[in-house]
């Protein structure tokens, strides 16, 4: 497939990268692992005049863990590294689990955690070759003014299908956003816009420069379950991440977080779980939680496989599975 032509720049510092991206406005795009971007280029969905390579910038692919501060992950850390790293596997198994579920082993070597968080939303009416796009009027995401997935909609409904975002959300991760003037830290939950056309809040010239995951207390456990047709390659048709912390082995809930992917325009944060705090984790409560997630999930017919009704039904099943798995880990008293 023929790619559009572009200039290629390798800045040696993040400041320089931000500066160039800002000067170019939307005409330049940053490239990390490139797995998401290359496909958009091959389909001519994005036609940047310049690519700004982040690979050569020192320290962006480093990761630091301490019991006091938790985990600081550079945006260029590969998914393969996250999946295989011993510290991550012991301390934050939900992260290694989610990373090992992305795409294929090849895509995990290439793809980065920052890139995965910035993954563009998907829609069958958008992610097509230039020729097969001609079958439809240009949609919102292509700069037109119709939505083929939700007829009559004035906004874009492309679905967020990243695997890492829900796992990091339930760990209450924060992202550091860098621009040419300085940096700010925001909770990952504020990073997503809920607009299918432009899924995150980054403006030209802004880059995720770090992902921070707080340390986990003891009796804490997390899990990520992903629904898809094949055990590899596919994007999540539904992904459920759950992290819970108990007071002690007795099963009194101290903190719990639940997030879904593949069923909305942004990763879906299920707020009802707050009601579980201080309660004993019994079956009825878990059913209630699954019910709340089911109600909020909004899968659409804009991803090829499996019907929206089936994916919505599976929300309950997957929340319960994720819950029991997380509980098992938490009851062992530690993280691994």
């Amino acid at each position, binding site marked *: *497939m023929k790619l559009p*032509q572009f*200039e290629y720049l390798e800045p040696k510092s993040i400041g320089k990268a931000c500066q160039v991206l800002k000067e170019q406005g939307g005409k330049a795009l940053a*490239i990390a692992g490139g797995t998401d971007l*290359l496909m958009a280029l091959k389909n001519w969905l994005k036609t940047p005049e310049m690519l700004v390579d982040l690979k050569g910038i020192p320290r962006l692919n480093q990761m630091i863990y301490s019991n006091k501060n938790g985990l600081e992950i550079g945006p260029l850390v590969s998914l393969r590294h996250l999946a295989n790293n011993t510290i991550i596997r012991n301390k934050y198994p939900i992260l290694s689990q989610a990373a090992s579920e992305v795409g294929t*082993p*090849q895509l995990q070597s290439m793809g980065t955690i920052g890139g995965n968080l910035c993954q563009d939303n998907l829609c069958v009416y958008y992610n097509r070759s230039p020729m097969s796009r001609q079958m439809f009027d240009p949609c919102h995401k292509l700069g037109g003014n119709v939505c083929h997935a939700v007829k009559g909609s004035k906004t874009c409904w492309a679905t967020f299908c990243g695997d890492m975002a829900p796992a990091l959300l339930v760990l209450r991760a924060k992202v550091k956003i860098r621009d040419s003037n300085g940096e700010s830290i925001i909770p990952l939950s504020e990073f997503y816009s809920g607009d299918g056309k432009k899924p995150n809040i980054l403006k030209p010239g802004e880059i995720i420069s770090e992902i921070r995951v707080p340390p986990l207390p003891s009796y804490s456990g997390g899990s990520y379950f992903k629904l898809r047709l094949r055990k590899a*390659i596919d994007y999540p048709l539904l992904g459920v991440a759950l992290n819970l912390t108990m007071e002690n082995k007795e099963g009194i809930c101290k903190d719990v977080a639940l997030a879904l992917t593949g069923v909305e325009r942004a990763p879906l944060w299920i707020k009802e779980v707050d009601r579980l705090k201080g309660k004993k984790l019994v079956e009825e409560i878990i059913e209630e939680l699954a019910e709340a997630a089911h109600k909020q999930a909004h899968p659409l017919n804009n991803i090829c496989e499996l019907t929206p009704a089936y994916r919505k039904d599976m929300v309950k099943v997957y929340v319960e599975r994720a819950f029991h798995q997380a509980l098992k880990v938490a009851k062992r008293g530690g993280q691994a």
Partner: protein
Amino acid sequence: MKRNITLNINGEFYELVVKTNQTLLDVLREQLGLVGTKKGCDSGTCGACTVIIDGEPFLSCMTLAIRCKNRIITTIEGLVKNGQLHPLQKSAMEHEAVQCGFCTPGWLLSAKVLLDNNPNPTREEVRTAIAGNLCRCTGYQKIEESILAVAEGKVKGKIN
């Protein structure tokens, strides 16, 4: 928009002029004639274009050639050492793990990365390692067996 780059492929250094928008796959096949690396889907799904970069499996169709400077690239042509096939290649022949042959270079390289990091994989680990290599003849059983046979030392020759 062309650039001069040097690529390290199978231990040889190649001085090349590449376009910024050329994939590694196209450079390997069209400029260097290393056609063992196959172009299947050309969109990051099938794994036929798998190469090893710095010890990890990569899709050459989704990698810009210009980003491969200063990296160590191994293609299927690099598995042969001193005229001797790699044990994985011998095993593939012995186990008749090749049908049409189009996916073969890709999974051989995925398997090499697996064995380089984990010399004694379980069947499940083999399956995970080759999960990114689609075989449309669906001959996965024999592919798995041929990889496991190498891990179990049933095939002569050096792995590395």
